[in-house]
């Protein structure tokens, strides 16, 4: 299980350079971390989105592993078909390799349009790891709000207007939905905490059943952040409590990042990103307060869940 940096550096890349993702995009960093954490051969299903369009512009592909994209809302259903085929052909003795199955979707393809397919795949118990690279809005179509967009954030469909300053609603708690859905291993991770992320990937692929990973993924275009800040913003998200690192194994909660002196002020995170700029205006102070309350409530709930599930 232990991850050795020296050995990691020697591994062959499974998502190679030359793709057209933006500088500072979290997605390619995450995919490389995920694929390099896995020792077995993998097959990847990819929902329509930035990752898909930027990595496979015909006749090129950045994927050194078998990869399939069919549509936006169905990567979980697609990989469940691949996994079913694997079981069928293995049973007949036509395949004897151990292969792992992954699905990559953005938060659009996971939280929203792909939720039904994801829920069905997890309920049916296909052994696959369903990964959400979560950049908290629909970035491929040009920064529209999603169920993952935090309260108050600017997007092009939740603009910072005079009457409605940013997204009025709090985000959906998809990770908790996946726990309730019965995924055997569920975790939130961030590329700033790469060792934690890669260990979670290892646990997920070694889970005999469906696993879900919700991975925080920066978007310099959508968040109005510098393109050299992918990792520093990711770290700030974790340190200010904007993104919690935790895992749920067979229903047992474990919080992986619990600052002894408490979280840093959320203002540090807000100030670093143009998408929240309007929240610093005095007239929008109530939204910032509501966002803080969202975080506090979620954190307290998580602490209680950790306590009761480990009694």
């Amino acid at each position, binding site marked *: 299980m232990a991850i050795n940096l020296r050995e990691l550096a020697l591994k062959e890349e499974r998502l190679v350079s030359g793709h057209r993702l933006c500088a500072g995009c979290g997605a390619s960093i995450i995919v490389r971390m995920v694929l390099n954490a896995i020792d077995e051969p993998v097959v990847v*299903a990819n929902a329509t989105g930035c990752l898909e369009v930027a990595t496979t512009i015909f006749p090129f592909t950045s994927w050194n592993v078998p990869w399939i*994209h069919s549509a936006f809302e169905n990567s979980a259903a697609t990989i*469940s078909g*691949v996994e*079913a*085929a694997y079981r069928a052909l293995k049973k007949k003795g036509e395949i004897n390799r151990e292969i792992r199955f992954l699905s990559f979707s953005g938060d659009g393809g996971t939280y929203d349009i792909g939720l039904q397919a994801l829920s069905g*795949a997890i309920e049916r118990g296909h052994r696959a790891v369903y990964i959400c690279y979560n950049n908290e809005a629909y970035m491929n179509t040009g920064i529209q709000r999603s169920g993952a967009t935090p309260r108050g954030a600017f997007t092009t469909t939740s603009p910072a207007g005079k009457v409605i300053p940013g997204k009025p609603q709090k985000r959906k708690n998809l990770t908790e939905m996946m726990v309730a859905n019965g995924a055997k291993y569920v975790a939130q991770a961030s590329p700033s905490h790469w060792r934690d992320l890669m260990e979670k990937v290892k646990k997920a692929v070694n889970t005999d059943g469906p696993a879900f990973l919700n991975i925080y993924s920066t978007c310099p275009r959508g968040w109005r952040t510098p393109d050299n800040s992918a990792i520093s913003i990711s770290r700030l998200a974790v340190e200010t409590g904007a993104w919690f690192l935790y895992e749920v194994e067979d229903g047992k909660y474990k919080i992986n990042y619990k600052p002894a002196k408490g979280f840093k002020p959320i203002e540090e995170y807000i100030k670093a990103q143009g998408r929240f700029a309007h929240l610093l205006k005095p007239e929008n102070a109530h939204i910032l307060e509501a966002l803080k309350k969202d975080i506090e409530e979620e954190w307290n709930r998580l602490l209680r869940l950790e306590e009761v599930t480990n009694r």
Partner: protein
Amino acid sequence: MKTQVRKIAIEGNEAAALAFKQVNPDVVAAYPITPSTEVVQKFSEYVANGEVDTEFVPVESEHSAMSACIGASAAGARVMTSTASQGLALMWEMLYIAASLRLPIIMTVANRALSAPINIHGDHSDAMGARDSGWIQIFSENVQEVYDNIFQAVKIAENENVRLPVMVGYDGFITSHSVETIELLDDDVVRNFVGKYRPKYTLLDVDNPISVGPLALTDSYFEFKVAQAYAIENSLPIIKQVGKEYGDLTGRYYDVIEKYKMDGAEYVIVAMSSTVGTAREVVDALREKGLPVGLLKIRVFRPFPTEDIVNALKDVKVVGILDRSMVPGSFGGPLYHEITSAMYHFDKRPIAQAYVYGLGGRDITTNHIEKVFEELMEIGKKGKPNPLTYIGVRE
């Protein structure tokens, strides 16, 4: 080689499920919908009782059914599914993708009306909505044809020069829920006929990774689509060849169209699926009376057998084209449009009369068909067709 014939009385849906069982596919991913539900239901029994080796994926929607079929087929599995009506409509996005990715998925469709108003009965609106999706579309007249068409579909779809999905249609309730006596094939005969599926490229060949379904922009998309168009055009002789091979095996020969009493026929009805059976009765009766009537059945709608149809109709005076679906805002149904377009460039062609009938399962009786023939004869005298006519509707 004629094998020993085993006969059984069976419903259309059960016959489809039985054919699935005999093919013993690697993966079936399906979602129930009236009037196709029994296919999934019966097949689940085969799975539960260990009578097939199939991995059954009981998905949460038809969209996911076709998505899982696509994943499984790209992984190298032989894949089958079934649906109808709204289910096919929900799959619409994925139908195009299955065809464009050149995946030989087999799907039965118990053809049913589309909402609204919601109606569970038979018409061809669902399949006609998918006619441009790139699937091969075969329509079955009766339960025997449902059973026979499924085996042929597997062989057509997986042909190296085709590699396209095939939809086998049959009329909802009229055929799906009718018990008919059919001739069965033995399991080993079926397996020998369909052979083993050996795809060229699969996702599970992890040593030779492929990217399936990439982004193709202005410089390559068009070429992909044209290659796909050629593939379905080229499937026509293969469909005929498979129909002949199947005939040699069973005595039941299949072509892309069927000409019934067309010799010397001046007034002809064109129809698909179960209505053909009703029309046969009328043609027999009118022929007894000495009237020069005939019947043309369209078995394969995609690829459209243009030449076969044009040749079959070239000496006919008046043709009545019966569509069991409508194209609102147009002057005829899909079958009418395709046949009249096909005949446009030929000097020898009949007058064509458009009919729409049987929407939402409205009965079409021998009386209705007799009236159609009477009208065709009047049109023959008059020398020009009437506007689009709805059969059996209160206006």
